[in-house]
């Protein structure tokens, strides 16, 4: 679980004028001296440079070499790795799988949390219980999620096939056949992460001022009409945020796929990051793996920038 803050936290006090930073005690009686600011930031900058900036640069360099995990190789090969990647059918297959997973998971991960939030927001008793039920899975380590769902998807002893059997369907080989394996991953992922988007929607709903509803009620709007013409439009910004965060997070899928299917059967659930891992750590081709990772990084950066521009335009 990495983090992504899209929204600044503010303390609710008057913002300081950012153009007038306070001097770091230079020339004053203090322990910091003139460069106190640098001393404050230095510890962070050291780990930042060592374990983020350097790997980014080094990874880019590796992509132009034939470095291997065993330490052999390391000669520059120009754009060879990139050329090979663009002609590698498995690169395209895993890219397609990743896009497929992203779309198939993002749609339910927008709709279901919205429904959850609308229902919880009705104000029925037992608020803490609803929130616990929907949000608790999000706090589970991915391994717990995978173990639980592999067990539920188990062909003979699994709970899902037991229920489907009761209505005459199945048994379905959920994670063992190409046609359903990705859906198994999607179902587990939706169950695991819906709670996060649910909280974002709940916050969005609580941000709609009461007088908007009162006005709608005065106009004689019924509940469905209010939902369609007031609530959903007012949630537009929240929906934008949820969609963007979800797209970026779904594209980076690795953990649950590795644990539930290791990319199989027959590559049907192999995502880009799984392929990077395979090439680098099973195939020992660090240079080639880096090239694929950098192509993927480029896609993520383009999407992130598109997202920023989208939000810019909305605010304008």
């Amino acid at each position, binding site marked *: 679980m990495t983090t992504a803050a899209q929204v*600044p936290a503010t303390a609710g006090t008057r913002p300081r004028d950012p153009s007038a*930073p306070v001097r770091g005690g230079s020339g004053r009686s203090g322990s910091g001296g003139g460069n106190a600011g640098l001393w404050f930031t230095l510890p962070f900058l050291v780990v930042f440079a060592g374990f983020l900036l350097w790997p980014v640069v080094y990874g880019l360099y590796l992509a132009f070499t034939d470095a291997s995990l065993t330490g052999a190789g390391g000669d520059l090969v120009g754009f060879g790795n990139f050329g090979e990647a663009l002609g590698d059918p498995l690169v395209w297959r895993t890219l397609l799988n990743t896009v497929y997973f992203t779309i198939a998971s993002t749609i339910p991960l927008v709709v279901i949390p919205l429904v959850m939030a609308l229902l919880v927001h009705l*104000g029925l008793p037992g608020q803490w219980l609803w929130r616990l039920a929907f949000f608790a899975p999000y*706090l589970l380590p991915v391994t717990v999620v995978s173990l639980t769902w592999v067990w539920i998807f188990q062909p003979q002893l699994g709970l899902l096939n*037991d229920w489907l059997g009761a209505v005459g369907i199945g048994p379905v080989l959920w994670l063992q056949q190409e046609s359903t394996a990705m859906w198994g991953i999607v179902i587990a992922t939706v169950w695991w992460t819906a709670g996060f988007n649910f909280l974002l929607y709940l916050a969005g709903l609580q941000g709609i001022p009461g007088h908007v509803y*009162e006005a709608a009620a005065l106009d004689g709007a019924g509940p469905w009409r209010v939902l369609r013409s007031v609530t959903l439009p007012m949630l537009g910004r929240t929906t934008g945020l949820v969609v963007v965060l979800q797209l970026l997070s779904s594209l980076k899928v690795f953990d649950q796929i590795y644990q539930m299917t290791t990319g199989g059967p027959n590559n049907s659930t192999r995502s880009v*990051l799984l392929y990077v891992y395979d090439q680098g*750590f099973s195939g020992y081709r660090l240079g080639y793996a880096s090239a694929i990772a950098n192509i993927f990084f480029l896609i993520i950066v383009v999407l992130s920038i598109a997202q920023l521009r989208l939000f810019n335009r909305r605010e304008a």
Partner: protein
Amino acid sequence: MSSTTSTLPASAPGGRADRLARSGSRESTSARPRLPRAVGLVALVVMAALWLVPLVWALVTALKTEAQAAALPLRWLPEGGFTLDSFRTVLTSSNLPLWMLNSAITSIIITAVTVLISAMAAYGFSRTTFRGRKVLFALTIAAIMVPPQILIVPLFREMLALDLVDTYWGIILPQLVAPVMVFVLKNFFDAIPVELEEAARMDGAGPFRIFWQIVLPLSRSVLAAVSIFVFIGAWNNFLWPFIVVNDPALMTMPVGLATVRNAFGVTFAADMAGAIIAALPLLIIFMLFQRQIIKGVATTGLGGQ
């Protein structure tokens, strides 16, 4: 950047997020559209039940013997009653307790160091001037876009060179970099009135004393939120510890539980007992810090995958 992405309410005391964090918020119920409440209640109960089924089924399985777990037809209440055997097995004859200890040690160190250096850096960026401050802060913000997953290859090479593969420090060091936390904390510090610090400066306090004795105490709430999210992230991290550790004795819980299969063949009940035990710490933390966690997600979007 902050102005373009601020789409959710600020965490002003008594504000929306604050209300969200407290339970209920029924103050404005009357103003809300009312679906027929019975329909809403039924839908809510069905959905919550559906969401709880996997966890309850995992618990039920964990409370069975292996024979009961593998018996058809499936039973929610096994013949012969429940047993704690599987939990006993997992706790005494697997490495799970050791893995949880490894997770606890690394996560606590990661949390303490990350929060400290991020807060210091945020204060430096927010309140001081030094050469390169603006460039370095812009670089920090840009780094939020870098998915840590794409760094596994070069980072692993780096760890090999530093001889940190299969060590705690190999797990810890790359996880200390949290540009997003620097960003969140800087926004918070920006909003603290400067006058408080100026008064202290008049009294002769240096920048480090001001930071330690005035700014940090004022920031308790945001520091708590950041700490919780850093801890959750470290505790649940799978990919990096999985890459950097091969020795089963050094594995963290998500890695060990996922990769080490026991020697006794297929053990459904024991698997689920392990899963339940592994799930407990964060569920307990959630019960204790429900307010901060919900508020943190709602106001900052912290904790996204």
